[in-house]
Each structure stands twice: as C-alpha cells, then as structure tokens.
C-alpha cells in the first residue's frame, strides 16, 4: 500500500536553529499538506500546497515557516529560527484531490524537540 514517508522520525535542535523536515508524498498525489500536533493536543493544519505554490495556510504558519518541493518527489517544511513552542509532532499528508477520503494519507510524523 502506498505511504507517505517522513524523515527524520525525531529531530532535536537548539532554539534559534533552522530545521528542515522532509516528506515524500505518494507519487500520484497532487495536494500536499503539513500539520502539527503539540503533545496531548489536537492535530492542527499548517499549510497546503498545490501546483508548486501555497494554496492555503493557517495563522500558525508565520514568516518563520516555509515549504518547498525541491524536486519531483520531496516536500519539505523549513522552520528558520526554532522556538521552544515549535516542539511538536509534524505530520505531512498528501491527497490525489481536494475531495479527501481514504486517499488523504498521513505520514508517521517527525517529532521535533527544541531545547
């Protein structure tokens, strides 16, 4: 079964450092997403990406965040200067269409710890 792959599974970084979280979406999917989940809280939408540009972003996704699809397979989330409150699980997701359904697939996440 196709899956969304995220690396690394766990990233520890010093406050103020830049981090890049990587995702390989499912190959025939066109829509890509990043979500985050602070420990014990609900999953929150960050950004959606389609046709090589951001299509929608939440208020969480401020100027410290950026996304990129550097090649035909990877989708990255960069945090320029990490803060303690950026510590969370970050999930990448992809879908074939906007419709959703069981084609909307999440990766296993990257646990980011900012110290």
């Amino acid at each position, binding site marked *: 079964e196709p899956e969304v792959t995220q690396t690394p599974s766990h990233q520890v970084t010093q406050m103020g450092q830049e981090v890049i979280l990587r995702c390989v979406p499912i190959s025939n999917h066109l829509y890509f*997403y990043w979500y985050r989940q602070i420990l*014990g809280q609900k999953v929150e939408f960050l950004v959606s990406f389609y046709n090589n540009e951001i299509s*929608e972003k939440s208020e969480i996704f401020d100027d410290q965040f950026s996304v990129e699809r550097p090649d035909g397979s990877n989708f990255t989330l960069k945090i320029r200067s990490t803060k303690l*409150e950026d510590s969370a699980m970050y*999930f990448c997701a992809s*879908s074939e269409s*906007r419709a*959703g359904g069981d084609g909307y697939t*999440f990766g296993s*996440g990257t646990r980011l710890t900012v110290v």
Partner: protein
Amino acid sequence: GENVGLHLPTLSVQEGDNSIINCAYSNSASDYFIWYKQESGKGPQFIIDIRSNMDKRQGQRVTVLLNKTVKHLSLQIAATQPGDSAVYFCAEKGNYGGSQGNLIFGKGTKLSVKP
C-alpha cells in the same frame, strides 16, 4: 510557560462490547467529515468518511452517524477489540471559498479496550 496540553476524554470498554465516540463540529458550512484513528507515535489513519448529504454510513465494524441539525458526529465500533485502542479524532473539511482540502480536527477521544 509550560504547555499543559488538553486532557483527552477517555472511553473505556470491555473487549467485545460496542463503542460509541462522539464529536461536535463547529462549522455548518462543512460538507465532509472523516474519522481518524491515531495510535501512539503514528500519524492519523483513515477509518471512515461521510458527506453532508448522508446521515449514516457503514464500513467494516464501524458506522458513522451525522446529525447536521445539532452539528454532531459519532463513530460506532462494533465488537471492540484490543487493537482498537487508540485516540480517535473527527475531522471536518469545508467546501467554502478557497478551501484547498485542509482538515479541521476535533480534540480526540482516547479509547481503551480491556481484555
């Protein structure tokens, strides 16, 4: 300050019993709803979905009920098994101006199945 996080509602059931997990959604414009299962350390996993033109949909051992009048969604799991132990999230997706498929998640319910 310290991130206390939200206390998740917990449902504890005996193996073999039926489980009912409830969710209230906020946006009457949402037209698509999904239930996800999240096991520890993993990303959300699709269980079942329902569109707003339906009030009931059945899958394998699971049924989703939608009451648009009171904006309430429920997930029924028949013959609950230990492998069903996880946190369950409902998610809604709107079909309103510019929405590009981002999901809005509920707070989650932790299901514990006693053998």
